[in-house]
Structure formats: structure tokens, C-alpha cells
């Protein structure tokens, strides 16, 4: 096993659907905010000020608390040139770091390959959710996908527990190496054994875990609790990936957006509180991103797809504060009505790869991009 307590660990939290940057970190003293958002805005007295210019939207209080402790870095104006404003294409670009062609390998999967080149740990990278996001998909790199840690495993459909353990015993024998098997058969057997091993190892995480922290009842908080359990069980997992959404608030944003951020913020607060209760917050960073921001002017009940967005780094190792510039809201500076990105997301990834994991970023993000001094 490559696991030691001090191996740096990354949690990626993807805000799927295009989070409204303009309504997340709000330039609350700018009249252009109120002019552009006749219907979809937060009232000034509810916005949580950061400084004289900017504030968190109202349900991000728990994140503001972490910010006040110096643990949150806000990355302004993130994106990439010529945003296609399409969810799928845009998410693909964020996942593969290929803005000009259709990429096949995910950046986080490439990191996993570098972190565990001999595939010693079947749990080096885990997605919490169904299947794999393209960010984690690289042929030949084992990545686990856990929809629900409590029920994760093989043949979970067999409800009778004694029958199931007999079935699992049979499975392990059926998948043990045989003499004179075909190459494909051997490959299947070793993969099945890996899968069972992974499920077996990860099973101990909830058993080992105890905490006084109560996570709120939301899908993202549940995933974050599962992540905390696996991390605290020291199974050598280096990349945790999960997502929450949908932030695609074309309509009804005034109701949906605060609820989404309430779930995310409370989940994050519980997660870090949990790590701190166990004295284990020192080698985890969390990275939050969304595939794009949203249109500056609202559409009467929501906002449409935009360009520049906001990212966050959170954790004890993070040097809190604001990085970069909030893009100009002046009409003459917008492109197709959108905030123009002024910082390339691949720079944020490079920061993670080089300054956190101490690896070469170029082959992972496909080029050289400006990093950010967000790590202590």
C-alpha cells in the first residue's frame, strides 16, 4: 500500500449545471448588479459582506465562517477562452483539459495513474455517485464508483445475509486464478478480484467511523460524510470526487439557488468539522468548480448560460483570501452578455498537481498555465 497519513488528499466537488457566479460572490455595492438582476437577485441586507465590494450570497454562511478562519480561497473569473456555453461540451473541457478537440482521458484519472503507477491500490481514486465522470475515466486506471457507501458491494441484491456471504465466498473462488485460462478470462478474474477487494476494504470505513458531527440530510452531505469515512479509515485514497446539482437555473433561480448552496455549504462545514474533530484536516484540500457562470442579465425568473465562473479552494492547508480580479460588469466589457474569464482553469488544476501532489502538471493539464499561490 502506498498509504501514509501524510499523503496529500484532494476532494473535488463539482457544481453541475453552471453555478451563477454573479449571484454567488456578489458585487453588492455595484449598481450594475441590481440593474441587471431585476428579478433574480439577493437583497442587499441578506448578502454576507466580505469587504466593501463583495459578499457571499445569503446561504453561504458556513463557507463564510471558514473564510474568516483563513481556510477559503476564492478564485475569480475562472474559465477558458471561447466558452461554448454548452453544458456537455463545457463539462467535457473541464474534465479532459481539451478545449479544441474531444478528449478521451480525464485529468483526475491521469493524476490517479501518476499517484499509483503500479496500480497497488484499487481505491486510489473514488467517485461518490453513479458511474464515473469523464474527469476520472482513463483506460486501464482502476477507479471505484460508490453511489452509497452503506450498501456498496457485490451481489447486494441477495438480501439474505447468510446466503449472500455464501455467494460472495463462491464468487471469490470463481474469480481466483486458474491454470490454462484464456487471457481475457484471466483479466476478468483479476478485475473481479480487484472489485471485490475494493468493496471489501471500503466496507470497514463505516464500521471504523465514529463522530459526533451530524451531517445535514442532503445528497451532497451524505456523499461528503461517505468521503470523510473513507478518508478517516486510511485506505490510501488520494482523490475523492463528487458532485451536486443541478445549478442549471434557467427558471426559478430565486428558490433553487439558495437551496443548492445551503446544502453545499452545510455539507462542507460538517465535513471539515468532522476532519477537525479527528485532527485530520491538515492534509486535505477541497476544490469546487462549475462548468461555467451564468448570463449577467436575468431572464425574468432565472439566468441563462454564461462564461466566467468562480472556483473555491477550501481546507487547512489553504491560504485564504481572494485571488484574481472580478471581471468587469460594464456593458462594453461583456461578451454576448457574459462576464469574460480572466483566469484559465487549467492553472487551478496545475496548482493542485504541482503544489499539492508535487507532480509535473504539464502532461496532466496539457500545457503550462499560471498557477495560484493558494497553498500555505
Amino acid at each position: 500500500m502506498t498509504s501514509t497519513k501524510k499523503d496529500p488528499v484532494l476532494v473535488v466537488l463539482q457544481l453541475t449545471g453552471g453555478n451563477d457566479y454573479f449571484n454567488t460572490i456578489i458585487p453588492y455595492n455595484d449598481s450594475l448588479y441590481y440593474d441587471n438582476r431585476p428579478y433574480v437577485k439577493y437583497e442587499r441586507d441578506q448578502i454576507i459582506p466580505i469587504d466593501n465590494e463583495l459578499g457571499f450570497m445569503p446561504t453561504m454562511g458556513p463557507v463564510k465562517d471558514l473564510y474568516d478562519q483563513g481556510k477559503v480561497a476564492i478564485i475569480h473569473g475562472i474559465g477558458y477562452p471561447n466558452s461554448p456555453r454548452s453544458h456537455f461540451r463545457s463539462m467535457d473541457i473541464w474534465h479532459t483539459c481539451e478545449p479544441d478537440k474531444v478528449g478521451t482521458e480525464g485529468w483526475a484519472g491521469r493524476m490517479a495513474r501518476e499517484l499509483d503507477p503500479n496500480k497497488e491500490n484499487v481505491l486510489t481514486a473514488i467517485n461518490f455517485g453513479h458511474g464515473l465522470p469523464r474527469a476520472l475515466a482513463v483506460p486501464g486506471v482502476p477507479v471505484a464508483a460508490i453511489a452509497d457507501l452503506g450498501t456498496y458491494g457485490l451481489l447486494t441484491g441477495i438480501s439474505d445475509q447468510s446466503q449472500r456471504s455464501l455467494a460472495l465466498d463462491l464468487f471469490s473462488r470463481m474469480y481466483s486464478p486458474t491454470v490454462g485460462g484464456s487471457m481475457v478470462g484471466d483479466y476478468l478474474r483479476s478485475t473481479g478480484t480487484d472489485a471485490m477487494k475494493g468493496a471489501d476494504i471500503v466496507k470497514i470505513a463505516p464500521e471504523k467511523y465514529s463522530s459526533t458531527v451530524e451531517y445535514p440530510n442532503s445528497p451532497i452531505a451524505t456523499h461528503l460524510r461517505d468521503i470523510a469515512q473513507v478518508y478517516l479509515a486510511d485506505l490510501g485514497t488520494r482523490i475523492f470526487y463528487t458532485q451536486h446539482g443541478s445549478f442549471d437555473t434557467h427558471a426559478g433561480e430565486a428558490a433553487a439557488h439558495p437551496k443548492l448552496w445551503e446544502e453545499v455549504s452545510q455539507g462542507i462545514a460538517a465535513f471539515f468539522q468532522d476532519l477537525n474533530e479527528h485532527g485530520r484536516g491538515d492534509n486535505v484540500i477541497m476544490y469546487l468548480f462549475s462548468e461555467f457562470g451564468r448570463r449577467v442579465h436575468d431572464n425574468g425568473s432565472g439566468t441563462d448560460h454564461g462564461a466566467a465562473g468562480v472556483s473555491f479552494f477550501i481546507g487547512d492547508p489553504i491560504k485564504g483570501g481572494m485571488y484574481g480580479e472580478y471581471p468587469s460588469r460594464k456593458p462594453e466589457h461583456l461578451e454576448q452578455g457574459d462576464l469574460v474569464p480572466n483566469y484559465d482553469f487549467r492553472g487551478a488544476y496545475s496548482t493542485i498537481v504541482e503544489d499539492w501532489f508535487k507532480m509535473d502538471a504539464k502532461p496532466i493539464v496539457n500545457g503550462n498555465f499560471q498557477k495560484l499561490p493558494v497553498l500555505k
Partner: protein
Amino acid sequence: MSHKEDLALMAHLMRRAGFGATREELERRVAKGYEATVEELINPTEAQPAGRMALLLRYHPSFLLPGGVPFSAQANWMYQMISTQRPLEEKMALFWHHVFATGNSKVDNADQMLEQVEMFRKYGMGNYQTMLVELSRNPAMIFWLDNNENHRDAVNENWGRELLELFSMGVSNYTEVDVREVSRAFTGWTIAPKLPRLPYGRFPWKFEYKEEDHDDTEKSFLGETGRFNGEDVIDIIVKEPATARFICRHLYNFFVADEPQVPAWTIEPARDEEALEMMIDSFVSSGYEVKAVLKTMFNSEFFKKARFAKIKSPTEVVAGTLKMVGEFQFPDVGLLQIGKEPTYMGQSLLDPPSVEGWHTGSEWINSGSLLARINFVADRVANTQLPGIQTIISQMKSDGVRTPEDLVDASLEHMGYLELAEETKGQLLEYARKGGNLDWKNQETAGRRVGEMLALIGATTEYQFG
């Protein structure tokens, strides 16, 4: 051949030429005969309608024009796969989707993706030359490979290159100049200006030929010279021996047995050269009729012998299982979920990873996808409430299945006449013996044991092959 052997062969045919069949359907088809079944699959009549789209329209109208919601489009296709009475037509649509891989990640218009699949249904078993012309005019494809950016005065080679490299001849059979010339021949083949998506949503895309943007000057392509347009280039392409070989090898890989991945085809010899030659002969002598190759292939000995020589694709696992257990015969709630299931196993329908399509064979399998496959199958076949499983249980009861040996054998038959390695079978038997004979007086327990045995068979390495 014994009746059982007939059924096993028919099960093989229906797995490959469709998405599997229940015992009842196999019996019916065996009564009709193997070659007659092949004929019916290749030439479906009006008595065999495609998927139950009227029902889908009534219960899930948004699935027919899903616009910006690709999951609904995936569910739509999955429903067609399990409800069609034209299984080969549907399987061929999936085949062409593998070859002419177009992805919603860029197209971002699920309506157009479904329209492309419909085009595959319509032309998929017809003439390959016609298919290529239709493909060249297909709006999703034009946008996917940027032919709308291919202008008389500014050539974009994306479509021209992939047409040669991935859709017809394969690499190393043409030059860079040929790519350029083909691309020039397709200048002006574009889509009509798209209407803004907002506020009314996505509008249908339409093919448009723009005479004024077409480069009508002379071109030289593979030794021929003329003022070629797109159709002329396709005429030349289909006659190339490399094309027949490339398409037939794709068909062999998809329907008969796993070949190495496409990029290796210039280096690795075909798995069965003689079989490939037979298929190529049918293709060329029929004037590039896909049906002719299919008929030769399905009726051949090499096909009949190729049982369990392919790893099932995720789509085959999901559709095959749903057909077997009789789930979603009716488009009820939860249908959205079944379109996502292949994604969890590594095959996001309508969204292949790139224009090269999916890597098949053992590359379908990794620890995550194997777990997802096994659990998906086990969750369903062990569910004795599902109609297909209830039918299997009552059939076993009336067939007098009693001993552990009977139980394993009958279960294997119901799982598609699966053939197991001696050792695996021994292990299953040992497991079955622990429960002793089936006691049909306690139908619930007996049924549960049948479900468990089916689930365990679904978990074998052998079951990953189809």
C-alpha cells in the same frame, strides 16, 4: 441437432442479431427455423413493428424530443431496444452508432442525436453507398465534425479525414492530399443557420447544400480526376477494396468475435481471414448491400461456432437483462433510469468518448464497470417479483426441476444456454447442493433459490460474454 441444441443456437443468434429473447420467443423461432429467422430479421415486415413509440409518446412525451436532456434520449433508445420487434434493425442502429460515433457532448441537441439513430434504422441494413450519402447529409454529423465550417475558401478537413479514416477505408490507404481533396468535395454541405435556442428551445437542424460555398473546381482523389462533389467521392470510396475490408471487419468484430481495437487493424491480422473474405465477397458482389453480408454471416458456420466469443457491451447487458426479466414492457416510471445504466458500465449511449467510438472487448471491463454489470444483472434476476423471473420459476416447476443438478442446468438454459468452464460449473453445483433438492411445496423458498442461482450465474466471468 437436438431440440436443446436448436434452442441454444437460436439464443446465440438472438443475442447477436438482437438483444436476446425469452424461452417462449426462442421456441417460436426454432419452430420457424434458423434460416427463416435470419430472413425475417433482415427483412422485417409491417407485422414486426419497431419500438412502441405511441405508448412512449403518451406516457413520456418529452422523451421523443428531449432537446437539452440527453438522459431522456438515452431512455428513449433503451426502450426501443427492449420493445422493438425488429431487433436486428435496432442492433444495426447500435452498430452504426459504434462506427459513425457521434457525441452529444458536442452536438448538445438530443433531438438531432435521435434523428441520427432513426436514420441508422432506416438505412442501416441497406446499401452502404446510400448510407454514406445520408451520413454526409446528417445534421448531427455535420456539426460533430465541423463540416459547417468547411468552406470553399477555407477548407476544414475534420469530416473529410474521418470519412476516410474511421467511416470507410481505414488509415494508410490514402494520402494527406486525398484528405484535402475529399474535404474540398464536401464544401458547401452544411446545416441551415440555427435559430437561437432561447426563448423557445432547440429548433430542428436541417441539411443545406450551399452551391455558392462549394468548391466546384477539379479534384484528384485516389487516382481519379474530375470536378467531384461529395457523392462522386463516395462512389470512389465504396469501390475501394480497403473499404469493403474495413466495414466487414467492423461487422465481424460487432457480430461474431472480438477483434483488436480499430487502430491496430493495420498491424494485427484478422481473427478469421477466411470468414472475413466470405463477408467481403458478399458485400462486393451484391453492390455493397449490408443485408447481403449479414445474411452470409448469420448463416455461416463461423458465426454459429462463435458462441460466447465476445464480451457483451454495456448496452447489450442492460437491454438483454431487461428483456429477460420483462421489466419495462410498459413505459412506466423509472424508465429514465434505464437509459443511464449503460453509462454506469462505461457506455454512455449517444455520447461516445470520441469520434473513434468505444473500445470494445475486454476494454469494457474494469473493476467499477464489472461491479456495475454484475450487480445490475443480479439485482434483477434475483427479484422474483419480476414477470420474466416468475415465468422462469413456473416453467422450472412444471419441467420438474428438482435436484441441485437440475437447478444449475435449467438456470443456465434460462440464462441463454450459457456454457461454463467445468470448474465454474462444479462450484455452482457445490453451492446448489448446500440447499438440497428444490421443494416446490414451499414455492417462495424454491423461487428464491432459483433467483439466487440466476444471480450467481450472472456473476460468472462466462456471463460477461455473449
